[in-house]
């Protein structure tokens, strides 16, 4: 199949993320995925819009809700699903699992399961890009739940102090796990912190993937051209619970349904149908279905890694004992 370009490509990626995760939710219920599974459903436009504004050589870091950024950056659905299934063919040979996918080739340097811990790491790759003068930019996604963590403030301090080419993207979905922002952040506008660190900021409701591309793209271009960090706050909503084990009873059905009516994926599809045709978009959807089914079948058929993988991936040199 030929890969679509432009807006069709953005839609296709959003749809791919949505459908992969829906199938992963099913697989989780079937016991094929262990541990934790945090779905990105509802927030796809952020990863896809941001990725569209990045160069392939730019670096990306994100949270444990990482499937969307991984697929947006170009990780194959096969590698992602196999990783979630704990298979040797997964992105990290099954060692990481859902929260910790990693793709060196696409410079997706990980999902991070310790809240806030990855912000300094992203600051480090941005430092290295500036040090090497390679024109690269680092993008770092995190939730508003990271804001009370020390690393948020340490990373913004260092990035501003050293004028690093980095875009901090706060995906503010309104809930730090099960607690609404109003109960955990004394100041609800995350971008208000930009003042403290003397850096530019932008804050907007995520409704349209192309707007995300433009708004985050402006921050990326500022980073690339002027080596200045930006704090972007994307107001978004996750349609599912914090993880699969969270029924989300801290939110009303009315609230969730109101947000689903503003689903950026539904909007993107409608706009693409208007630009192309229902048949053309349905053909894209069919491609995605085939890709997802292929990924699940691939993961199902793949072998599990064996324990002899553990030591050589812990140390490069000889294991101590």
């Amino acid at each position: 199949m030929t890969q679509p370009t432009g807006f069709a490509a953005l839609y296709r990626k959003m749809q791919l993320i949505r459908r992969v995760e829906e199938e992963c939710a099913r697989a989780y219920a079937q016991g094929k995925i262990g541990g934790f599974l945090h779905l990105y459903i509802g927030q796809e436009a952020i990863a896809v819009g941001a990725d569209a504004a990045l160069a392939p050589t730019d670096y990306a870091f994100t949270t444990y809700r990482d499937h969307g950024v991984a697929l947006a950056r170009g990780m194959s659905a096969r590698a992602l699903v196999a990783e979630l299934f704990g298979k040797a063919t997964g992105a990290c040979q099954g060692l990481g699992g859902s929260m910790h996918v990693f793709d060196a080739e696409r410079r997706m340097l990980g999902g991070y399961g310790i809240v806030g811990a990855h912000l300094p790491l992203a600051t480090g790759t941005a430092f290295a890009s500036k040090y090497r003068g390679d024109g690269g930019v680092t993008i770092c996604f995190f939730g508003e739940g990271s804001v009370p963590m020390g690393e948020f403030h340490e990373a913004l301090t260092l990035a501003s102090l050293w004028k690093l080419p980095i875009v901090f993207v706060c995906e503010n979905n309104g809930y730090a796990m099960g607690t609404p922002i109003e109960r955990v952040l004394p100041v609800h506008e995350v971008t208000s912190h930009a003042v403290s660190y003397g850096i530019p900021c932008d804050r907007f409701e995520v409704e349209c993937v192309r707007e995300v591309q433009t708004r985050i793209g402006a921050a990326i271009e500022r980073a690339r051209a002027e080596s200045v960090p930006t704090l972007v706050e994307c107001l978004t909503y996750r349609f599912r619970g914090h993880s699969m084990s969270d029924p989300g009873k801290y939110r009303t059905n009315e609230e969730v349904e109101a947000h689903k009516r503003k689903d950026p994926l539904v909007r993107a599809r409608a706009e693409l149908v208007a630009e192309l045709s229902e048949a053309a978009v349905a053909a894209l959807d069919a491609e995605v279905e085939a890709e997802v089914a292929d990924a699940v079948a691939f993961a199902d058929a793949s072998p599990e890694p064996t324990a002899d993988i553990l030591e050589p991936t812990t140390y490069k040199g000889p294991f101590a004992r």
Partner: protein
Amino acid sequence: MPQINMVQAINDALRLAMQRDPRVLVMGEDVGKVGGVFRVTAGLHEEFGEARVIDTPLSEGGIIGTAIGMALYGLVPVPEIQFSDFIFPAYDQIVSELAKMRWRSGGEYSAKMVIRTPVGGGIRGGLYHSQSPEAQFIHVAGLKVVCPSNPYDAKGLLLASIADPDPVLFFEPKRVYRAAKGEVPEGPYTVELGKAAIAREGAHVTVVAWGAMLYEALEAAHQASARGVEAEVIDLRTLWPLDIDTVVASVKKTGRVVVVHEAPRTCGLGGEIVSLITERAFTHLEAPPARVTGFDTPFPYTTELDYLPLAHRILPAIVDAARY
């Protein structure tokens, strides 16, 4: 060859590493214009400039986290944590991110770096400037841990650590930073990681020590000799991966072992060393393995010389082991 101290030897190693490889950076609190609280980085800022010798805010988590990102990119950061007691704000970064990076990336990426930090007591620093937290890092799979005792080893081990593909914690025993002097060759050389040294040969008791306590073990061995007990003193040098073969070979010869460390006794590295010895040389043991260590308390200010496992505490352990 010139006689220099450990501060000068480590400074020399950093300078050589930075001259040879533009990927090597030094960063930390007061490491640049000030030259470091112990003067270990003196002169580097002038020679290499502020792009490569970076004064940071007081932000240990930020320093180590940023260094991990630099390392992911392919730079070779050598961050300094001003005292190993200050490393705990960065403990999460070291444990959750640094130690796991190679593994969690399926072997794709390592975060190759050397964290330098002064360790141990001996400067009346009290509870926040004296601790020896090596075991807390050895327990985390994925890190290598080094602690030299003399200038020659300090330079060679630091250059080996900077060349090593894995993250290394480089503990510098501040009690002997300037007191330990020795001949150090000019120019680069390495001391292989994971290899202990026999600091004193002896047939009756094996003593395992490292860092500043090596000198106490040697002094105790000297005093034991006057009583007819010849101790073999092993300088572990690399704490992890530790050279258990050298230790076990010695214990098989002597049948008796005393392990010395400044850190508190419980769950200290000494316990692990004793376990490894009993697993490998149980039938060779002629006496219960002994530990001479710090106490299971915070590190004291006024009673520092009681807390430290100095020669006067090591000597009876050697003699008791020999006469058991």
